[in-house]
């Protein structure tokens, strides 16, 4: 854990969803899914990216993995610019892999597990004996070799997700993006899957970009947490610091909304911020700070100027006017 493996600078992704009506010159209507996101990931760490649906966290994942091209911004992975060439070189494709959210729809129902796991091997490791490698992959994730001839529908949700993990590991990646890998699973299955992921991380020295909306899960897996709201990051901190001293009103709202199961946890929740309103449409992002429509501490300045990051402590930054004044 020392040098950054991934650096994202001012990443933007605007989708054009239509055009304005004629009388005037036709202007594109854009959705600013990701609007100026910057962060750094260290080698071997788990970085948690948290936000509500529609906050743009999956879009960030898809851009890094290469499914979308960014509108603006720079991503460098181990010192190489990911979008320098029009087509990403094989080595970089190989090194960054993704596990998708819904294991039911991310596996081809007409292929058996062997075919599913062979696909990345055929692309990235031509001319080797695939059978042994598939068996080895299944062994790594703790599935019996017989599972190879099963089809996805014959597996339970948890097992499907484990196949998804095995597929991501097939190319020996160094960065794995986990896009809500357990949100479709039961808690008991989630526990098993998470523990498998943590064990694999140690074994292969993987870096995880862990995307989720479950903050209690984040508390237990991530080294650092980033909170995203409407395409922008609003708070970054080390996990322990983050849960002890949440600063941004949105973070406090998220934390106070979590249903918990013990009194110890209850004392950790900030009680004063009660959740209200819904995430606005990304087509009409409020002027100024995008959170101003739901913020309980809203000030006149919030409706005019978008705040910039304020560094509070080492590794803990927040993007809010409440903390800007103190400097």
């Amino acid at each position, binding site marked *: 854990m020392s040098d950054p493996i991934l650096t994202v600078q001012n990443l933007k992704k605007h989708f054009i969803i239509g055009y304005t009506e004629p009388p005037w010159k036709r202007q594109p209507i854009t959705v600013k899914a990701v609007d100026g996101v910057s962060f750094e990931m260290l080698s071997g760490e788990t970085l948690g990216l948290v936000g509500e649906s529609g906050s743009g966290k999956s879009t960030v994942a898809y851009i890094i993995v290469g499914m979308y091209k960014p509108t603006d911004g720079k991503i460098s992975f181990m010192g190489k610019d990911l979008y320098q060439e029009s087509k990403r070189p094989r080595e970089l494709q190989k090194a960054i892999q993704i596990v998708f959210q819904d294991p039911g729809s991310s596996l081809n129902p007409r292929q058996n597990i062997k075919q599913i796991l062979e696909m990345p091997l055929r692309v990235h490791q031509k001319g080797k004996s695939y059978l042994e490698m598939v068996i080895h992959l299944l062994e790594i994730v703790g599935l019996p070799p017989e599972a190879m001839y099963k089809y996805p529908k014959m597996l339970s949700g948890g097992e499907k997700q484990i196949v998804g993990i095995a597929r991501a590991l097939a190319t020996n990646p160094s960065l794995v993006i986990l896009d809500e890998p357990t949100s479709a699973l039961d808690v008991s299955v989630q526990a098993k899957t998470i523990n498998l992921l943590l064990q694999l991380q140690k074994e292969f020295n993987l870096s995880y970009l862990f995307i989720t909306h479950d903050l209690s899960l984040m508390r237990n897996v991530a080294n650092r947490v980033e909170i995203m709201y409407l395409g922008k990051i609003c708070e970054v901190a080390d996990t322990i610091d983050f849960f002890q001293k949440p600063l941004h009103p949105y973070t406090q709202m998220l934390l106070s909304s979590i*249903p918990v199961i013990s009194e110890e946890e209850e004392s950790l929740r900030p009680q004063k911020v009660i959740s209200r309103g819904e995430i606005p449409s990304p087509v009409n992002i409020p002027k100024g700070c995008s959170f101003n429509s739901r913020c309980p501490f809203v000030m006149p300045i919030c409706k005019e100027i978008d705040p910039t990051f304020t560094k509070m402590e080492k590794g803990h930054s927040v993007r809010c006017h409440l903390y800007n004044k103190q400097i």
Partner: protein
Amino acid sequence: MNQSSIPILEIKNLHVNFKVYGGLLRVLDGLDFHMYAGEKIGLVGETGCGKTTTMKAILRVLPMPPAEIPTGEISYKGHDILKMKNDELKMVRGRGISMIFQEPTAALNPVFTIGEQMEAIIQNNIRDRRSTSSINIKELAGLSLKDVALADTDRLLKSYPIQLSGGMRQRVCIAMALSTNPEILIADEPGTSLDVTIQDQILRLLRDLVEKRNMSVILITHTLGVVRELTNRVYVMYAGSIVETAATKKIFQKPLHPYTKGLIATVPRLSGGGIANGIPGRIPDYKNPPSGCRFHTRCPYVMEICKHEKPSLYQIEEQHSVACFLYTAGE
């Protein structure tokens, strides 16, 4: 709590089977359940353990066939729902027992406006048909929407489900379920498909409404935190039968059944400390369910007797019963 001596809803030894290609799925296996008026009950368990099947059996909305109910009794205020004729059933559904379904998107009809759907429900459940004109019904629909903290009801009534956000759709579903003023409200995972902040809003709203009207509630969920905040008694269900029931506080402080212990241990905590490895194995195949206690294949404390005999619910202390041989051995 005003507990009268007769439960408002009681299920005795309910069995539900599904006839499918290649065999018979024995899903519910002798389920016992009771609730008194005004109780708020949580029903928890993993996916596929029969929670929703139970609730559908109560409302008699299970598709039959493939489902069949060989034995069992579901009595609502002393009347057996399973033996009711259609017109009697109409009185129970809606006015007596009402349900909020899991997926607000799937529960609303996409080709009718919210207003049309709400008015249909109110029309069907009006106690005295002659005294209400159609204008009155519209007003009632608007009022129900206001109850769930939705603003701009006139526009909402004219819009289609697709025009609303997930949170708003769930509010509409709650409004629909409550518009008939039921005595029992069944809420099947009311917040699961929503974001935490929205889930929090929905649950707070639900709690306030239920408190105000003094309704009895059955909350089905697999999120234990939600159960803790909303209910006062919990049923834990595994593979078609109840394995433990206790007051909500007690079950989190001192879970007894190995399954309950496993479930509670796997919940990630805000206070950190890692995640326990959970319960090994998975829900059994209902075609060939394990003999004896259905949990014995996954239980860390399995004994010889568990493989042959099914434990029945055994009362440990007041309001705390568990179906496990670990606790009946002293008898």
